[in-house]
Every structure is written in C-alpha cells, then in structure tokens.
C-alpha cells in the first residue's frame, strides 16, 4: 500500500548521488533550525520539472537527521510530504496525510512503526508514548469522513502536526509538488495555505514548499497574505563542476568509462540536470555502449531522445500534462518552435498566434504548461523553461508527428545539427557583416527605382542562369519590372545579438516612407534576415515569416506596409523559393546583392570599417545604437519622436519617461530645424540605448545657436525649447563645431520616476 502512494521520490532518492547545491542547502538548513527560536521563515522552491527540487528536499531531510544530538531540545523533525494528483479528493488526502505524518514521526522517535499501514495501530503506538491527543484527531477525522466534509477533514489533518510537538521536537514541513493542492476537488484554491496560515505566521514551524508552478502557488500565497512570509528560491541546473562530479558515482556503479573531456560536454548537453545524467547513465549501461568520442556520445544521446529513457520521460510527461491528443500535438509543435527554433516569444498574444488557436483554447494549453512548470507567467509576460533535452525531444516529436519521419532519420538529424552546431556560431560574423552591408545600402536607396529582379531570386535564376555578366546587366536595364524604394529614415542592426528584451530578432530592421512622404499611411517597415548557411532551409523561411507576422500584429501593419526580405549566400531549393514567394518574401542571393551595390556605387564594406564600440564596454553590455536622418520639413520631428518611442520600448521604459524623451527630442529637432544652415539641410539623430540610460544626439548642419538673430516668431518660442529639454531629461549639453551644432541629451532609466506609469490614456 505504502509504495502505491506518493513515496516514489523518497524511495528512489540516493543521497550518495546528490551533488552540489551547497549554498541552497546551507540557507535551507538555517531556515529550518531557526524554527526553534520562533524566527523560522518559510521558503518556496520552484523550478522546472525534474530539475532536482525533490532531491533537494530529501537531501535536506537527511541533513536534518544527521544533526548532532548534543543540541538542546526541541529538535527539528523533518516531515517530507509529497502531494500528488492521485490524492485529489480531500478525504483521501487527509487520511493519507495523517498516516504519513504518524509513520514518519514514529520512525523519527526511534520506534519501528507498524508494518501494515494501519492508522489505528499507528495512533496507538503514539498514544503509548503519551501523545493521547492523537485519538481526538483520529475520531474527528472519522466523523468528517462519514459526513463527507472534505474541508473540515483537511483542516483537522493539517492541524494535527502542530499538536504533537511538545518540548522534544518541532515539525519542519517539506512539502513537495505543492501545485497539486490547487486541484483538490471542491476545495477552493489556497485552502491548505489558509489552514496553515497561523502556524506559518508563528515562525515556529518552518515550511519548505516546492512546486513547479510558482505562478499558482504565489498567487495563493498572495491571497492569504503570506507572500511576505515566504522566501523564493529558484532551483536550476547544477553548476558545471558539480554536474561533472556527479558522473563519477553514476558511472562507477555501472562500470562505464568515459573520457574526461566528454564528461564536460555530456553534462552540458544534458543541461546540468542530475536526473538526465542518471537516465543517460542507465541508457549507456542498458545498451552496453562504449562512449569513446563525441560522435558516439551524440549517437547515444540521439537514441535516448528518440527511443530511450529521455524520450519516455518526456512522452509520459506530455501525455499526463495534456491528455487531449489534438491539444497535445499543438502544445508540442508550439513548444518546439519556441525552444528548438529559438522562436522569441514573450507575450500571450504572440503565444496564441503561434499556437494558431483562440485565446480560450490556447489559454488551456498554456495553463497546463504552467502547471507543469514549463513556463512562468505573470500578467503580460511569459517565459519558457529552456531545457536542451526537452528541446530535442520536441524536435523528435514534431518531426515524427508532422513529417512522419522515422526514428533513425530524426536521430541522424539531431546528431548532425549538434555536431555542426559550432559551425553556425562561426557564421555569425559573416552574417553581421552582410547585415552591415545591407544597412549601408538601405541608407542610400532613398526613393530610387531599381530592377525588381534584384529582389526576386526565382525569376533572376530563370532569366540569367548561366548568362555572362554583360548579359545580366543589359537584361536588368531592359527589364520593365521596377521597384520604387521607400525613403529610409532609420535602419538598425544588432537585434539578433542583443537578445535581452527584443522580440523580433531580425538581422536588420528599417523604417521608411513611401514616396518620401512622412505620413502615417506611407510608413513601411523592412524586416531583413541574412542567412549564411549552405542552403536556405524551410525552417528558416517559416521562422522568418512567423516573426514577420508577429511584428505586423504588434505594430498593426497592413501587409503592404511590411516588406520582408531574406538575403542568402548558398543555394535555395525551388520549393523554398516558391514558399517564400507565397509568403511575399523577397529573396536575394549574394550575386544579386552585388548588382544592387553596383547600382548605388558601393563596394562591399570591408571588415571593421564600421564604428567600433568603445573598448571599455563589455560585449554583453554593448549599447544599441539607432540612427535617423530627418529632412528639414514641418512635422518630421514626429518621426523622430516615434523612433524614440520604439527605441525606448526595447528597454521597457515606462510611459511617462517615454513621453518625456519624446518631447525632449521634438524640441531638439525644432531647434535644429530653426538653426540649420539651409532648407535643404538634414538633421542627424542618434539614439544610444544601454540598460542605464538613453542618450540622444541631435545634430544640425548650421552654424550654431544664435538666439539674438532669430526672428520674432521663433524668439517667442526659443526660451521654451531649451527650458523644456533641460527639465525633461537628466543632462543636456550643446556643442557647436564646424559640422554644426549637436545637442546631447541623457535620460537615466534606472532611477524611479517617482510618479510611476499609471496614465491610462494612450497617445501612441
């Protein structure tokens, strides 16, 4: 009977195979011991499934048991209890809880508890030690059970431990899989916390609560006013060193040999998650395999993902999490895109659009994933647990389910992807370089008319396959199809490298206006990806198209306003060309790009020609830089304000601060317009965004500020412009040189704005 219940984790826990997490253990131990003096806190452990939360609890239990007995009583009695989906009826849960508590308490007291799981016998053993209150709780339990009063039974059972302490011991609660308590039949969510509330508040009964659904648990805590009493502790993978050390006992027991350098790789490949390491070791031992080199390792890993232990683990997980087959397939496809294809997604709208479902149906899937700890969410932000093994499993399930590939085909592609994984990283530089070339080109293409064939890989191939250079040039000139390019006002790269808060992950994004007319209706956005792989893959096009869809959705663009463009180096299958065509994506090959550059009188940029960031900034803190050139024309300052808004959105700046930045930049532009040398001049803007601040540079081509010579009209306004700027930003300085006047404005982003951002009206 006992084994049928929730003892799985405890039964299979091997203290000898537990590694690392010293810091967590030390702080948890301290919390537990402080219960003695009534200052014990409670802790909520959270983290993805099978990351090792249960092991941590069980390790804590064994550490508490090993404490020297010399300390004066009361001593901590660690009670480990795992909630599970089997115990969804409150009466069953109450009964089991009482049995479990009594059994563990008797064992703690040095008794050998009755072998049969007999509540009466257990109670009698405890009574024999003078704890007569046990009988009262037991008869109350019977009474509530007969009446079918689940809530009272729960309150009775969960209050029982607090009556058993006395001077000798105090219970320390190690509650595992706590998220299941929200699924109790006919019991309101958070009822357990509500019962435990006075005990938690007392500080005498430390409670370590573990669960994979922190969103549900914390909302219960908040409702009960307990949130402040809990410390939150996230449990992630082990440190790389610890996870390498964890191999030793696993391999020793199974007599497996593995070269040391592979241990590091293997541990990383398995996300430094102990349970994966154990499953993998079992897999090796089961197959009697030898792992001598990386390929052998990758092969075995792929096997394990496609038909081995790792596969079974996740398959059962999904079957259990989302029983409905259609929804399960949806969830797997969706997660595969988010995790394996690294699809950037962090909003519910984005998730629903990617799931291809209504918010109701999608909400159900997302909520199941949250319950199981695969995603964390708050009101407007969702975050997925990135787990390398899970990603590969999703890849397998997707390819099998959607494309019908067989196991070995999928295994082969996983191996291939991983072995060639390092290659893709190497291409990053080439990719950035190509993006820079395109960026420079777009800056120069204002309102030009160019042969449409330069954008159309398929037609270009058809017409000019195996033709000479001269023929191509003449052919392009004669071709009637022309594209009129918009006026590009801002173009930026670096979206992909600075993942931080970005959602759309393109290699290059440009803002422009058709026919050089700066009005809302004429706004166009170019989204560009540069693909440096040998062949342009189906997935790359799909991925790009999906990001484009999200961008359109987010910006409310009609299809005509978003221009989609993929530049690629290698070959493209006719099917891919056709697919891109269907999506309305322009495809341009490197050879077409050369003709393009030719048209603008450009050589391909040499490496390193672009400005380098200052050497003192670390790579991961490289500021994002945006540039904009404004023609001197009434109301174009609105474009500058709009770009400022978009830039600020990257740093999740609050609305009030965004408004202040917008107003400051509008004023600086108006100043620049008034003081620029000529009507034909331009105003150059730079926006530099770092986590701490946004720096704005507005440069005109004029001779500097001449307030005294300004006309009546502007004199009236002059004072205001500068005064406003200095009030709206944290720092302003103005320098006049031969190239004109530059106003530099700095707005710090990290300090509080004082008033918050609660303005309800949206002036977008």
């Amino acid at each position: 009977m006992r084994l049928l219940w929730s003892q799985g984790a405890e039964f299979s826990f091997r203290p000898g195979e537990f590694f690392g997490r010293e810091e967590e253990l030390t702080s948890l131990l301290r919390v537990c011991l402080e219960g003695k003096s009534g200052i014990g806190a409670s802790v909520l452990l959270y983290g993805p499934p099978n990351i090792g939360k249960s092991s941590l609890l069980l390790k804590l239990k064994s550490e508490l048991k090993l404490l020297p007995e010399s300390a004066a009583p009361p001593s901590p009695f660690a009670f480990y209890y795992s909630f599970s989906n089997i115990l969804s009826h409150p009466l069953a849960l109450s009964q089991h809880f009482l049995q479990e508590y009594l059994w563990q308490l008797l064992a703690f007291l040095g008794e050998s508890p009755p072998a049969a799981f007999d509540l009466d016998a257990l109670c009698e053993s405890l009574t024999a030690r003078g704890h007569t209150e046990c009988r009262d709780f037991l008869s109350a339990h019977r009474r509530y059970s007969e009446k079918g009063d689940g809530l009272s039974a729960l309150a009775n059972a969960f209050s029982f431990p607090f009556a058993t302490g006395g001077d000798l011991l105090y219970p320390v609660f190690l509650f595992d899989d706590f998220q299941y308590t929200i699924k109790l039949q006919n019991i309101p969510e958070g009822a357990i916390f509500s019962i435990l509330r006075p005990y938690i508040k007392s500080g005498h009964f430390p409670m370590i609560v573990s669960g994979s659904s922190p969103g549900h648990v914390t909302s219960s805590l908040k409702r009960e006013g307990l949130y402040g009493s809990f410390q939150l502790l996230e449990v992630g993978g082990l440190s790389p060193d610890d996870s390498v050390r964890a191999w030793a006992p696993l391999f020793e027991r199974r007599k497996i040999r593995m070269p040391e350098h592979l241990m590091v790789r293997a541990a990383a490949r398995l996300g430094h998650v102990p349970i994966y390491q154990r499953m993998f070791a079992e897999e090796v031992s089961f197959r009697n395999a030898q792992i001598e080199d990386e390929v052998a390792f990758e092969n075995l890993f792929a096997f394990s993902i496609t038909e081995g232990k790792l596969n079974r683990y996740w398959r059962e997980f999904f079957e259990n999490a989302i029983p409905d087959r259609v929804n399960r397939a949806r969830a797997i496809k969706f997660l595969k895109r988010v995790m394996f294809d690294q699809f950037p997604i962090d909003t519910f709208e984005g998730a629903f659009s990617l799931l291809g479902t209504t918010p109701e149906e999608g909400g159900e899937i997302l909520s199941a994933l949250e319950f199981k700890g695969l995603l964390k969410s708050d009101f407007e932000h969702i975050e997925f647990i990135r787990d390398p093994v899970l990603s590969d499993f999703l890849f397998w399930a997707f390819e099998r389910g959607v494309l019908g590939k067989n196991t070995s085909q999928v295994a082969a592609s996983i191996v291939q992807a991983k072995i060639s994984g390092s290659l893709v990283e190497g291409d990053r530089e080439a990719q950035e370089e190509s993006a820079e070339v395109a960026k420079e080109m777009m800056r120069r293409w204002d309102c030009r008319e160019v042969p449409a064939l330069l954008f159309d890989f398929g037609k270009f191939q058809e017409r000019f396959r195996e033709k000479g250079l001269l023929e191509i040039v003449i052919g392009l000139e004669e071709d009637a199809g022309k594209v009129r390019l918009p006026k590009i006002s801002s173009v930026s790269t670096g979206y992909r490298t600075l993942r931080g808060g970005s959602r759309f992950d393109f290699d290059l994004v440009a803002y422009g206006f058709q026919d050089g007319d700066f009005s809302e209706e004429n706004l166009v956005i170019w989204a560009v990806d540069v693909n440096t792989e040998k062949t342009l893959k189906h997935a790359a096009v799909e991925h790009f198209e999906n990001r484009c869809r999200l961008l359109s959705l987010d910006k409310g663009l009609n299809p005509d306003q978003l221009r989609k463009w993929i530049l690629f180096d290698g070959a493209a299958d006719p099917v891919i060309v056709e697919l891109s065509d269907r999506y309305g994506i322009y495809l341009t090959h490197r050879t077409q790009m050369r003709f393009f550059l030719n048209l603008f009188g450009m050589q391909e940029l040499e490496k390193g020609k672009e400005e380098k960031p200052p050497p003192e900034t670390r790579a991961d803190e490289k500021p994002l830089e945006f540039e904009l050139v404004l023609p001197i024309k009434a109301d174009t300052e609105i474009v500058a304000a709009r770009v400022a808004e978009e830039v600020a959105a990257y740093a999740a700046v609050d609305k009030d601060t965004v408004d202040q930045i917008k107003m400051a930049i509008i004023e600086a532009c108006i100043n620049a317009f008034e003081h620029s040398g000529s009507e034909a001049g331009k105003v150059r803007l730079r926006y530099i965004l770092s986590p701490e601040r946004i720096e704005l540079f507005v440069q005109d081509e004029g001779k500097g500020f001449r307030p005294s010579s300004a006309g009546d009209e502007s004199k009236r306004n002059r004072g205001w412009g500068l005064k406003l700027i200095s009030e709206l930003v944290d720092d302003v300085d103005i320098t006049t040189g031969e190239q004109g006047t530059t106003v530099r404005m700095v707005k710090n982003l990290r300090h509080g704005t004082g008033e918050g951002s609660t303005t309800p009206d949206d002036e977008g």
Partner: protein
Amino acid sequence: MSDWTVKTREAGEGTSVVYVNGYLNSRTGKELERVIHDVLDAERPRVVLNFERTRLINSIGISSIIGVVERMTERQGTLAFCSLNRINQELLRITGVSRYVRAFDSEEEALSYFAQSV
C-alpha cells in the same frame, strides 16, 4: 484619423469649449489663436480648452497657449483647461502656464466650475 485640428462647441451661458486635436504645433497653434479670436467677440468670454485629444504639445504650441491666456486676460475672460494627459500637464507646469489657468480632469468639472462662478 479625423481631419479637424481645432473645433468649438457652445456650452451655453456664454461658455465655449475648444477642442484641440493631435499635435499642437505652430500650425495648430495658429488655428487655435484664430478660433479663440472669434470667441473673444463676446462680453467677458468664458472658454474651456479641452486637451483630451491633444497627443503632443511642442514649445510653439505652448506659446500659442500663452497667447490665448494673454488675450483672455486682456478681455477679462475666464479660461480653464481640462483633460490634460500627464506629459502635457507636466509641460504646462514646467513652462509656468499652469499657474495662471485652472485645470480640471474632465470637461464636466470645468463647466460646473464655470456654472458656480456666475
């Protein structure tokens, strides 16, 4: 997107409500001053400037508002603002305009203030 930039509504008892739409810059500012000029024909004019649909005000727009304040003072009229968003409120505060004119959260509040001060 609507085309009008400034429009007026008679709210009774000699009170006009003037609405400013979109970006209050030099062009809209001139339009505002023109509209106010028409309203000023009345004896002791009373005007509520409604900024509910004003998305941005630049420094030239601020100057126009000051112009309106000056005209109203000359004619011994009463002026009130309403429905300012936070940034516009801040701009009027920074430029000191808010010291001369009372601002209300809504048009109703502004009108009832006028009604009481008859």
